[in-house]
């Protein structure tokens, strides 16, 4: 009987401990479970659907957390959708610690960058610069060298296809100096070859419009261009889908942008010739470091350059880590 009593006593204590842990179980979860950081940065991208932007944000966030900064993506979890300028405005009014902005050439953006600077909020532009603004630093790609690479690739493809090869470069509506630089570099590379090159601006500012615009542009051609060069990931995906739909895989060669799994698989299959991608991890490190350096020291280098990653059939397998994976290896071309 003594044994049973002691066993029951132990059972009671164990039961109370379980009961206590059960009642305390949800105290540390949900809204109570968070960590604070000393700085609050906001990343404002051009296109919320852009996978490059998405991946860049993830890298920014990840690197920021390691450096006691939290990088918020503007417009996330909001019931309404705001334009880039409005997001800038909100970030300024929210008095964030710093802004990482995918730049453009609009005057409004310049004004807002200047306003942020006047409000004591440093702005770092990324991927595309905001010329003539008071941004503290620009983390960009080496577009000229990328353009030459694009050009050489077109030449090599044209040698394989036809002497009178036609190439089309699909540029973004927000076309900025970076894309222009890239296009110029392509033109200069192709000039001695006599390859005919054209450009078309795809205005994909409004959501879901890119595919329609690309279809409109390509439908104007009696025969599709031999080579289509895309300078954004959405344009790449739309152009590729268009070619598949028209059953023109093999007739037209696409040089894409970004390294989504579908693009990589297409390269692996030979449907896509090659693609250029951004080393987002390196870019993220540059952005966060630039803001931290500026806040800590009051000045920072105005320009950080990173190279594109070139991927074709020869090296695509090493980037096909897994089909669901988004990341590329940090390997520059």
């Amino acid at each position, binding site marked *: 009987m003594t044994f049973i009593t002691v066993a029951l006593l132990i059972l009671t204590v164990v039961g109370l401990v379980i009961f206590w842990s059960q009642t305390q179980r949800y105290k540390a979860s949900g809204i109570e479970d968070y960590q604070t950081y000393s700085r609050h940065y906001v990343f404002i991208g051009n296109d919320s659907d852009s996978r490059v932007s998405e991946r860049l944000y993830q890298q920014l966030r990840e690197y920021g957390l390691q450096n006691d900064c939290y990088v918020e993506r503007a417009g996330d979890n909001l019931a309404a959708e705001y334009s880039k300028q409005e997001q800038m405005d*909100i970030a300024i009014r929210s008095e964030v610690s710093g802004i990482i902005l995918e730049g453009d050439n609009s005057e409004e953006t310049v004004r807002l960058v200047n306003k942020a600077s006047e409000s004591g909020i440093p702005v770092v532009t990324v991927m595309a610069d905001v010329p003539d603004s008071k941004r503290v630093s620009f983390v960009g790609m080496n577009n000229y060298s990328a353009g030459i690479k694009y050009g050489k690739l077109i030449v090599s493809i044209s040698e394989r296809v036809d002497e009178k090869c036609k190439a089309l470069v699909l540029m973004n509506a927000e076309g900025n100096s970076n894309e222009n630089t890239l296009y110029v570099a392509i033109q200069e590379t192709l000039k001695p070859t006599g390859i005919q090159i054209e450009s078309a601006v795809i205005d994909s500012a409004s959501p879901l419009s890119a595919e329609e615009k690309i279809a409109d542009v390509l439908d104007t051609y009696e025969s599709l261009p031999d080579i289509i060069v895309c300078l954004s990931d959405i344009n790449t995906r739309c152009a590729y889908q268009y070619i598949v739909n028209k059953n023109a895989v093999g007739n037209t060669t696409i040089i894409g942008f970004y390294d989504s799994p579908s693009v990589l698989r297409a390269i692996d299959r030979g449907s896509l010739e090659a693609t250029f991608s951004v080393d987002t991890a390196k870019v993220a490190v540059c952005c966060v470091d630039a803001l931290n350096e500026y806040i800590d020291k009051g000045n920072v280098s105005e320009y950080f350059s990173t190279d594109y990653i070139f991927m074709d059939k020869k090296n695509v397998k090493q980037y096909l880590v897994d089909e669901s994976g988004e990341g590329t290896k940090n390997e520059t071309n």
Partner: protein
Amino acid sequence: MRRIRQLLSRVKIRQKLIIVFLATSIIALGVNLFVYINLNTMLERIDAVYSTNINLNKLSDDIKNVHAGLTGYLETKGTDDLELYYRYSQEITEEIEDLNDQPTDNALKLGELNVRSLSKNYLETAEKAIRGKRARNVELYTRFYNECCESFDYLNTYIYSLNNETFRTNSESFNTMIDSLHYSQILCLSIFIIVSLMNVLLIVLLTSTITRPLTKLSEKAKEISSGNPENVELLMIDSNDEIGHVTRAFNRMLVSIKEYIGRIREQMVTESAMKEKSLLMENHMKDAQLKYLRAQINPHFLFNTLNAAAQLAMMEDAKRTGDYIQNMADFFRYNVKKDNEKVRIAEEIELVDSYIYIMNVRFSGEISFRKEIDESLLDVIVPSMILQPIIENSVKYGINNLDERSIEIVLSLYKKDGVACVEIRDNGKGMDQKIIDQLLSRQPLEYSKKPDDEKSVGLANVISRLDIFFYGKAKFEIKSAENQGTSVIIYIPRRDEPCIE
């Protein structure tokens, strides 16, 4: 556990009962209190789940009010609007103090930070607009008002979004917590059942330390009452409480009962022996008296008659006849006077002298009687009528042998090893050894059933009376051989030794 038992054994029953009730009550109360506090905390947390939504709704309403106040004031410069503005701007200032102000990786908390910053920015801009209005700077307050409108729009979106997100999270938390609450309730019920069981067992355990010794005590009492207390063993005492005291007292009582029973038994044996002895003595005396009465016919009448005859013989100068009759008279007088008394041995010897004289007259002087007396022993006290029956026995056995020689009887009184001895020797035909053995072993004699002439006061009677008188300390010795005579020796104990009064 042993220590607890030892400790409990020293505790009084009242304290034990208090411990039992206190222990079970404290356990039950403690468990209840613990469960109550935790359940209450849990319920409070559940209640607080939607408090963030309520706060955000209030903040949203207050911002609408402050914006209405601002708009009204800028439009009309009305004091009511200004008052409305200030009242709600104050409330907003207080409310946003509760919101998170640190950058964080939690989306909701980050939303709070943004709402806080935007609200603060709105209030600052609104303040500038108010100041512009007071300064009547239309351009200025219009610009700030437009900024306020934009901020108002942003704020509403942020609060709405945060509210939605919070509600979604809170709903999940609420559901989880409600599930957890149900689980906790079941757990709680199980704990109560276990605690109740444990308390019952605890009560049984602790009270058994009281009842177990009582049960043992009761069993022992039953054993005693069943009528065999001597075989009942003492109880083990393992507690120092009241029951321990009772058990101790019970054991003492049991020991006393056993001693008392022993004493009573001894007393009964003694009394029985005494009674038996008394009855035996009385029996012998009555038997002797009866035999004497029968033998003497009427001693008093005979004694008186003999006295008269003696006087007559003296008057007629018949001296021998007179002496004879006088001896007979003395003999019978002794019988009458000394019956059932203790006497000096000298008186016994005198009686023997009278008896021998009478017998010599009867048997014409054929009995030769000789005395060897240590006169220092003449005062030894003996029961009456112990020598004459022995002499009579010698005479009786000697008479049967008269044809050959005369009867010779010697009476000796002497001291041997400090003890007075009376020895009567004769030269008769001797006694049968079987009869001697029966006499000395105090067995009933067969000759008691023989004819009347042998119904005199026998040796057996003498031996029995000596045993009774001297508590068996008087030794009796009979030595006899066929035609070699008989020697009877009585060893009389010292006078200072106990004897029957």
